[in-house]
């Protein structure tokens, strides 16, 4: 609570008073008392405000556009955020600085999200700024950081008024390029959303004429033809069914991995959103199936605006998903999570309720078991408690055991052991005093050295303990949760990822585990996708288009279930397309970069990049070959514009479905 200025003042006043008391100067004593009483009064007033007013602060948040408050946002559109801080009681805060924690996903912030002022009853403090998001996702407004100080700057208090508001950022509205061509290609263009099928049905276009059968409705009799042929002839009409398109969007960890220019998932979401909106404008039915390693989330084909908005909301929530990996070193996440927790949860990170005792920072170490290879310093740091105890107790125990062995060896009975054992120990300790002394001092010196030079490790251990306590309470892990998270690195890492993902804090994870395996391949999703595709085929009608927006690169040896499902779809006269996400920044398939041979003398970054490019190109070529055998086109998501391609395929389905 005291600032450096406050500490300096206390120190000087202490010297003043001490000099006055020891030097017996009433001038100094009375001056010192005056300053001391004034300081105590200011401290009391400040503490009352910090303890009684700050916890009662309330905020009202309003996110609006030019037409009024909104409940969901759109990408690439600007919205005004207005946050008002109220104090309900009669006490006031004379000087506060508030700062709204802008969501990390915000692309552009116009205006200042901070405000300075006084907060009184009836005189709230307001922060206003404009925010724009560049991509679909979720915007989480955590709350307002409140900093409070007195007029002199002697006291300081930081708090956070938490009031999380989560708004979906829907994908951007499709521009004219994304819409379908409106030129009339065929003379008989059915209404949008309707596809003529050359099968007998209840449509309006004539399909064929046939002999009358008993039971045919009389209104279908073609009277002129019947008169010419002198027998009853019945008209058969075409069947009219709506065109349907189902999008399968991959939301597994493999597409959530962040890169310098965004994630592959963001591109897939953009494509899916474009298709949904374009189809909706043409009154075609569009369904959506989001899948990852665990399961699916499905929206049946529909074209109503409410369902389209719901599907866009599903896409927005999927776009906000963060990658998860089970075997990540928590030390890569602890600094970020600790800084964020200190900002947003200052009440739960207070040293009075959540601290690492100072003596434990020097003695305790965790975890006891770990998977990754640790440096010598880290190894010694994590074993320092054992070093300390070993140095103090292991040597006497060792001496006792050797003494007991010696006594047993000499055949002394157990009755005399009680008397002789201490004696033998003393004799042994005296005989081997120098080696034992060197051993004990060596172990303890190792402990002291390790403890002294491992400042970063101590800091990380302190942060880890405080975070573990916070996570254990937040996720209701029970009384033993804190110790569990301290000992189990994998659990701590998973909970840290969950904590950061829930607050939509962007974080990076290592791509490879301790054994050098890529952590985000997610092969389980192939089975999930195959099952979802079969389910959609089972529920589908004729002539549907299934678009698989999935990262299947380097999974060509595990594609068999999916290929079977695709064969079933094709056998049912459906059409299938595969759109493969492409890492942002890599040259597109077919480009020359990375196709050449790797030069051994090339710099390492260039070699790595060339190898990566080649790996992706070869994976894409294999995928194209595998699906090409079935006649299924594979398109790179980064190349050209997949949305018009999908719409073109829909057009073909609409007009030329019978030419299939």
């Amino acid at each position, binding site marked *: 609570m005291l*600032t*450096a*200025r406050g500490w*300096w*003042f206390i*120190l*000087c006043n202490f*010297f*003043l008073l001490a*000099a006055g*008391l*020891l*030097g*017996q*100067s*009433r*001038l*100094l*004593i*009375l*001056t010192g*008392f*005056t*300053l*001391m*009483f*004034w300081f105590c*009064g200011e401290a009391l007033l400040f503490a009352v405000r910090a*303890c009684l007013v700050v916890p009662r602060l309330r905020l009202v948040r309003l996110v609006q556009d030019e037409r009024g408050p909104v409940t969901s946002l759109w990408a690439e559109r600007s919205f005004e955020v207005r946050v008002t801080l109220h104090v309900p009681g009669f006490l006031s805060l004379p*000087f506060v*600085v508030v700062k709204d924690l802008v969501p990390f996903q915000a692309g552009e912030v116009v205006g200042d999200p901070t405000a300075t*002022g006084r907060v009184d009853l009836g005189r709230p403090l307001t922060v206003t700024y404009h925010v724009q998001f560049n991509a679909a996702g979720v915007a989480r407004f955590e709350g307002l950081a409140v900093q409070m100080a007195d*007029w*002199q*700057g*002697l006291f300081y208090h930081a708090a956070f008024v938490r009031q999380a508001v989560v708004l979906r950022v829907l994908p951007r509205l499709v521009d004219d390029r994304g819409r379908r061509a409106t030129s009339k290609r065929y003379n008989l263009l059915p209404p949008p959303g309707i596809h003529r099928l050359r099968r007998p049905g209840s449509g309006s276009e004539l399909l064929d004429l046939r002999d009358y059968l008993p039971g045919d409705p009389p209104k279908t009799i073609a009277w002129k033809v019947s008169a010419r042929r002198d027998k009853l002839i019945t008209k058969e009409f075409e069947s009219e069914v709506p065109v349907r398109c189902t999008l399968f969007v991959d939301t597994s960890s493999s597409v959530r991995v962040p890169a310098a220019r965004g994630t592959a998932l963001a591109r897939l979401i953009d494509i899916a959103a474009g298709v949904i909106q374009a189809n909706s404008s043409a009154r075609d039915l569009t369904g959506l199936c989001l899948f990852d390693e665990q399961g699916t989330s499905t929206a049946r084909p529909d074209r109503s605006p409410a369902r389209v908005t719901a599907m866009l909301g599903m896409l927005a929530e999927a776009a906000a998903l963060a990658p998860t990996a089970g075997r990540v070193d928590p030390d890569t996440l602890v600094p970020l999570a600790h*800084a964020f927790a200190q900002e947003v949860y200052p*009440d*739960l990170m*207070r040293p009075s*309720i*959540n601290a690492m005792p100072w003596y434990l920072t020097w003695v*305790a170490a*965790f*975890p006891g*078991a770990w*998977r990754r290879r640790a440096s010598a310093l880290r190894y010694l740091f994590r074993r320092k408690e054992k070093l300390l105890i070993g140095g103090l107790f292991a040597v006497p125990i060792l001496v006792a055991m050797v003494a007991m062995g010696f006594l047993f060896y000499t055949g002394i009975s157990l009755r005399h052991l009680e008397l002789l054992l201490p004696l033998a120990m003393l004799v042994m300790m005296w005989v081997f005093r120098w080696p034992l002394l060197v051993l004990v001092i060596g172990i303890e010196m190792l402990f002291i050295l390790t403890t002294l030079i491992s400042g970063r490790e101590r800091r990380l251990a302190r942060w880890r303990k405080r975070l573990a*306590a*916070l996570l*254990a*309470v937040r996720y209701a892990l029970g*009384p033993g*949760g*804190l*110790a*569990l998270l*301290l*000992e*189990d690195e*994998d659990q701590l890492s998973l909970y840290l990822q969950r904590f950061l993902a829930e607050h939509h804090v962007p974080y990076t994870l290592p791509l490879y585990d301790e054994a050098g395996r890529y952590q985000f391949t997610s092969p389980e999703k192939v089975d999930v996708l195959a099952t979802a595709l079969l389910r959609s085929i089972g529920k589908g009608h004729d002539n549907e288009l299934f678009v698989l927006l999935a990262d299947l690169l380097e999974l060509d040896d595990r594609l068999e279930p999916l290929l079977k499902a695709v064969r079933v779809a094709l056998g049912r006269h459906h059409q299938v397309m595969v759109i493969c996400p492409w890492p942002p920044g890599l040259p597109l398939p077919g480009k020359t970069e990375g196709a050449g041979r790797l030069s051994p003398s090339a710099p390492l970054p260039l070699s790595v990049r060339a190898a990566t490019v080649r790996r992706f190109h070869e994976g894409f070529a294999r995928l194209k070959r595998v699906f090409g055998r079935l006649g299924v086109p594979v398109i790179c998501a980064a190349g050209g514009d997949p949305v018009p391609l999908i719409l073109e395929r829909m057009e073909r389905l609409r007009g030329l479905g019978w030419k299939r």
Partner: protein
Amino acid sequence: MSQSVVDDPNRSSAARRYQLIALLALLLIFVVLLESGEEMMSLIVLLLGAVAIAFRWAIGPALVLLLLMLSLTDWRQLFRNLERLISPRASRLFYWDGMTGATPLTEVVLAMAVLAFVIAQYRLLSLTRNAFPPDGRRPTPGPGPAPPPQLRDARLLEENEIAFLAVTLPLWTGIAFFFWFAMSLYRVDWFGLTPEAWRILLTIWLAGAGLIGTRAIVGYLGLRRATEAEARLYLQDQIWRQTRREQARIDHWLTRARMRAQQREEGT
């Protein structure tokens, strides 16, 4: 300090107001020191204090307090008392001599002047240098411009702020004087304690007891007002502190068993 901060007319006006108050207080201190016969020190205090006000030194108040201490302390008496304190014959402490002082008016003027100087100078610093300590979590800035300091908004200066200051000075000075003289009302005759020694002991005892009591009350009220999450966190922390080693041992073996099972699965 950014250019906009310097150019802000509201801020300049408010800063001038507090500079004027601090200078007036400094002049009063100078007069009191001059009257006490400290010609050289009074000039030094005046000079350094004025420089601190003009250049808005953060160390200004501390500097003036220390200079005041240097000038008004009877060092011979102080060292004699120190020698008595550290002497093994501690009973000599109780034979404390009488206090040296000035006229009550001088004492009142000095106390009020020093308080006015300290308040004015600190408020000036809040307006022109920084009102909040820098955030230690932020990384040190690179070659780019340093982040601007968080200042007190000059528009928030209240009309009655100076009036409050004028009331504050006699109030706290009066309380201090009352406290000092109230302590002399209750006298004891233990071990031949002089009244001054008794006051000093009483002061130290009251300060210590006040600190401990305040700490205990604030801590208790903090626990009473804790939210559910805070209470659970506190209890969990206590459990962990008491059973840390036992829990660590159990969890350590559970973790090892899980990791071994994973390794076996991956091996097959």
